[in-house]
């Protein structure tokens, strides 16, 4: 019986890996480079064997071996227009890899007024001479050497840790411009290594900037240009073990440097998952999630990061902060976890986290619904939230994004499929009378045991039908989710052809969702026009999360910058205006990206003077010498 269940669990595990990790294949030969310095002060090892250290980790110390230094993701995966002018996606990692995407060119050219003849290629290799020489704190370095913790002050290593993925950061890298960067990178292997590093940093007054997956989009990783001390980037990527799994309480104790895909894969091997899947999960790390209050797409079942953590260990200049027990809820004054969650690396380094885990779902099903208009789509999502029957994930794309998703359809192999597609389009637009320029689509993901999923699916589709929604198949749904993984790659393609863009998010009460979507999109278009952008921008949004009292809205914004002398500045002005508009319409400063340095200016009005004062006093107590000097948040 038990073995039976075990084997079925293994089966589902395999199925699941093939579904979500199909496009997240681990690199074939990533291990060679990883040099495991066994942590000498390792605590009592857990009974659960979590595999050899040198196996199965995505992120090597030298990230440049597998990742782009001036763009998103893996070096082998990128979009390009081939000689025939067709778009294709290279590599073998993703479902889309190696495929031709026939409609992308037309969409790209017509949406942005871009032209394949007008190219803006990136500087191909990093010119080390453009990199500032490191300012090293010799005593610190000496003492560090004696601890045996690996470190580097090579230019490439430092450049990699000098940025996140904001547009201005990537744009500058593509132009070969490099500003203030960390003077040294350091790779602790375990909690105790971090304790030593922080002690040394305090002793020698060195500035520490924790670095996890490097996927920040809030300028959080930017080195403050005014920082005169030696800046050390503390890269947690080698602290990537699952230390133990507690099957009785369904928790796992994990080192903070593990990236999302590794965490899921390793847990899956034991039949568990965390269910925390932010769009950046391929690269973002557990510690980063905690430090920014991350949100995963399946939060409806599993919760956001703050719901998932049971225990956090953080090393601060004052020492280690942690709770004494793992009680599921405590009434012991303000929850100290909430000083840590969202602290954005200003207070210390998160080293270990105990998280909830769940048995892997037996069954998973994608789905999609087409609505005649965005308004009806939002009304449907609101109703789903009211009835509290949201599937693991439910997202609503607006019309522009629907078209965008459509443009990303890979070439279909058979005439039959294309015939079917044609038929579907005909049915929806002609027979049902949907206006192709107004309709929008919701993508769904159901999880659970098979029967419940099917029941749940019916419930959701019934609600959708009340709002004019038509079920539009699993395929559309799945493609919608795929889009989130490749969109960052697409930005790099755009930047090859004068198109720059970015996404930003907010959360907003239900009654304002439609208004905020309309107003922010309109504001973006208006600002672009006013700032002299020659071509109409792409200004689109989607509702990506539902809550009892509101929703998370994502905006995508991109434009063709030909004819502008300072496109990044224009971009930043428009984004700033869009953020003002969001705040004026009752949206929050951020739902899960965080504040960083990009949105600092609005913190005071967001949390009030007293709020800022509270945060400041915590910072002053915990880190009086500003060792964690990335200057985020405040």
């Amino acid at each position, binding site marked *: 019986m038990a073995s039976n269940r075990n084997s079925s669990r293994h089966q589902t595990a395999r199925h699941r890996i093939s579904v979500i990790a199909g496009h997240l294949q681990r690199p074939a030969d990533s291990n060679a480079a990883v040099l495991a310095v066994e942590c000498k002060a390792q605590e009592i090892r857990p009974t659960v064997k979590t595999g050899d250290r040198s196996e199965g980790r995505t992120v090597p110390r030298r990230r440049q071996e597998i990742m782009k230094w001036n763009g998103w993701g893996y070096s082998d995966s990128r979009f390009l227009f081939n000689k025939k002018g067709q778009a294709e996606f290279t590599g073998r990692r993703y479902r889309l890899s190696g495929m031709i995407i026939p409609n992308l060119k037309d969409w790209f050219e017509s949406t942005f007024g871009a032209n394949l003849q007008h190219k803006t290629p990136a500087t191909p290799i990093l010119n080390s001479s453009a990199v500032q020489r490191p300012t090293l704190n010799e005593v610190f370095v000496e003492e560090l050497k004696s601890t045996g913790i690996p470190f580097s002050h090579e230019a490439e290593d430092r450049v990699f840790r000098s940025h996140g993925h904001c547009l201005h950061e990537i744009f500058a890298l593509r132009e070969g411009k490099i500003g203030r960067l960390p003077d040294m990178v350091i790779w602790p292997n375990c909690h105790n290594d971090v304790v030593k590093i922080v002690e040394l940093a305090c002793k020698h007054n060195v500035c520490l900037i924790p670095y996890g997956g490097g996927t920040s989009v809030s300028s959080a990783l930017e080195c403050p240009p005014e920082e005169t001390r030696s800046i050390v980037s503390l890269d947690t990527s080698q602290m990537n073990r699952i230390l133990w799994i507690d099957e009785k309480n369904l928790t796992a104790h994990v080192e903070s440097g593990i990236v999302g895909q590794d965490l899921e894969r390793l847990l899956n091997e034991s039949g568990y998952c965390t269910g925390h899947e932010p769009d950046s999960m391929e690269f973002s790390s557990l510690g980063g999630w905690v430090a920014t209050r991350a949100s995963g797409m399946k939060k409806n079942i599993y919760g956001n990061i703050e719901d998932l953590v049971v225990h956090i260990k953080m090393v601060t200049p004052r020492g280690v902060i942690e709770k004494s027990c793992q009680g599921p809820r405590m009434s012991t004054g303000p929850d100290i976890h909430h000083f840590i969650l969202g602290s954005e690396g200003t207070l210390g380094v998160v080293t270990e986290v105990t998280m909830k885990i769940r048995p892997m779902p037996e069954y998973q099903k994608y789905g999609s619904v087409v609505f005649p208009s965005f308004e009806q789509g939002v009304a449907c999502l609101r109703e789903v939230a009211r009835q509290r029957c949201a599937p693991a994930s439910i997202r609503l794309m607006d019309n522009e994004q629907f078209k965008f998703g459509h443009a990303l359809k890979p070439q279909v192999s058979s005439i039959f499929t294309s015939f079917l597609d044609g038929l579907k389009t005909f049915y929806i637009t002609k027979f049902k009378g949907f206006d192709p320029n107004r309709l929008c689509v919701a993508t769904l993901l159901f999880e659970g045991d098979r029967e419940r999923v099917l029941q749940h699916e019916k419930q959701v589709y019934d609600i959708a039908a009340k709002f004019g929604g038509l079920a539009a198949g699993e395929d559309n749904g799945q493609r919608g989710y795929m889009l989130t993984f490749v969109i960052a790659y697409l930005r790099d393609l755009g930047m090859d052809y004068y198109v720059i863009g970015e996404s930003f998010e907010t959360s907003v009460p239900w*009654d304002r969702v439609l208004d905020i979507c309309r107003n922010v999109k309109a*504001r973006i278009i208006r600002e672009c026009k006013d700032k002299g952008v020659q071509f109409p921008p792409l200004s689109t949004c989607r509702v990506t999360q539902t809550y009892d009292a509101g929703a998370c809205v994502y905006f995508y914004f991109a434009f063709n910058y030909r004819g502008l002398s300072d496109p990044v500045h224009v971009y930043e002005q428009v984004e700033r205006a869009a953020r003002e508009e969001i*705040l004026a*319409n009752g949206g929050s400063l951020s739902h899960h990206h965080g504040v960083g340095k990009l949105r600092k200016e609005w913190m005071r009005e967001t949390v009030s003077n007293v709020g800022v004062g509270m945060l400041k006093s915590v910072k002053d107590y915990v880190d009086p010498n500003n060792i964690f000097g990335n200057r985020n948040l405040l």
Partner: protein
Amino acid sequence: MENKYRVLDKVTQQDDEEFMDIVEDKRCCSDFSFAFRTFSPPPYKGAPVCSTAELNRAVLESQYLRYEIKEVAVETGSSVEEVRDEVCRILREMSQNLQLRFIRLMAFTVRKVFKRIFSAIYVNMEGVNALQQAAQESPVILMPNHRSYVDFLVVSYILFSYDIPLPVIAAGIPLAGMKIVGEILRRSGAFFIRRAIRSDKLYWAVLSEYVRTIVRSGFAPLEFFVEGLRSRTLKSLPPKLGMMHMILEPFLKGEVYDVTLVPISISYDRVLEESLLAHELLGVPKPRESTTGLLKASKVLRENYGCMHVNFGRPLSVRQLCEGKLNRSQYNLIPRDLPQKPNAETEACGSWLAHMIVRIQEEGTLTSPWSLMACVLLQVPTAALTEEGLLFHELTEQTLWLRTLALDFGAHLSWPEKLSDSEVMSSTLALHRSVVYRKAGHVYLVRGDEPERKHPISPEEDMMRTAVAFLMMVSYRNQCLHVFVRPALLALAMSITKSTQRDELLTCFCFLQELFSNEFIFIPGRSSQDFDEACSLLKKCKAVHVSLWDVTVSDTGLAVLSFLQELLKPFIDSYQLMFRFLCEERDCVFTEKEFLLAVRTLAAKLISSGELHTYEALSSDVQKNVLSALRRLGAVTRIKTSENNEYKVNKSAVRRTGDMLAGRIPPQVVQAVPDARL
């Protein structure tokens, strides 16, 4: 060519625009085929057509009204159903019922009538095109000035001609009471608003939700008269702010991206209601709006009323205008469906916007030759004008002089270009033969209809006959006062203070603005800009020298200055008369009615004795303005708001104000109490 306004800082003068005669234009096709033209306006983006029933249902079922209904039910102790029924009743009485067939009917008749009574209706095509564009982008608010009942029809008529979505129009409730006509107006898009509704919570709630729903849905432009009433004096009225706030709210709450305001200036060569208005000002009650009354009035349709100019102003984006003035996140913490009083900042912004719209309307109006002539004629002693007359060539000469001055001050004239000056003069006189006539090279004031009565007319009746013509002339002068008022106030300040010092003049200027803020429209908080404008205009016509500290009269400036001072003299005289009356009166408490009657008697006595030279003191408008000015300055307080307004006078304060106006004591600017009005 951009159409610009001085009142928006960046703005200068409007270039001469091309006006097109829309009546002339259509003469080729028949009224019938005009009325049945295909009408297919491009809709406001994304706005589905909204039927009357749907609109009313949306209003009735709104969260806001549901909340207010509950509140009112609790307050009055009646049941929710009863209150809801009352809301339905209000809504039935209020709601428009726009139907294209009735617009066609209206277009047909209106065109017939217009062709008969107007020689031309000029419309600036550029404004129409801009409006057409704007109507597709955001909800549009049409804001015409209001001088005649004709205003109601003409905008819809033009929009119908140019394929722009037809407006729903805010109208006063009396119009709804007219048989048939009320219904026709309703079906042409009018919705009806009761007067004095501030205190009626439920009515206010229904109206504001009704207006907001129209703006939110954007299915039709909303037309309303920001002055609230038809101006009896042809002068701009201080704007009413209630409606303005209702319109701003959907924008402030983020329910629409933007709201577009389109000021419209309608100028008439001759107003249909001219003599009716003059009689009304003299205390003859306005006939109730009734269909039979309208039919009786049909004799007015047999006359010629010259030209009419409809100037569509540049569409103004509320979003742009309010940028930096308002914090929209003030609505973030309370559900937007709940009633929320606008805060001080919002109130001020609404008031600023409304005043600015009125000023733009003023700047967009065209000044007719007749209006300039009225200014000249009014500076001639009335007795002389009725007895000896004014030499025609003298009138011509002075009018032409005034024309140059008006142009210097940036006025737009509707001076026919193809005619010689004397032709213009004679045709103007001919058009206004109800007020003046020309005989043997002289121009005389018409003295009412000779009553066909046996017994000789009493001196009072005699005076009234003159007064009617006089007040008609005053009205036409008022049409162009806005051109002169700022320099004139400066000229006045110079004569009152007898000073050349700039800061002293500014203080007096501000005092005068405050005192006369019911007479003339000034944008709140812009006194010093107004003062600078006055200085630069007087400098431009070489009447004064302006330095950093001083403003001095130039050698040639006396003519201009004394003309300007003379222009405002009737106001000064009338105000002083009423101040004197209030100080000498034994009682300190009186009702408004008593005041008007007593002042009128006193003024009539003084006019016939030759002590008072202006008939304007007889105008109930001026009389009421004095009351509100004194109330604003705190010299008079209202003690009872119900039924008859009762007032209490602070005699010493009134005397002080009079002394300041006469230059006996230096003026102080009193911090005015904000005016709470609809």
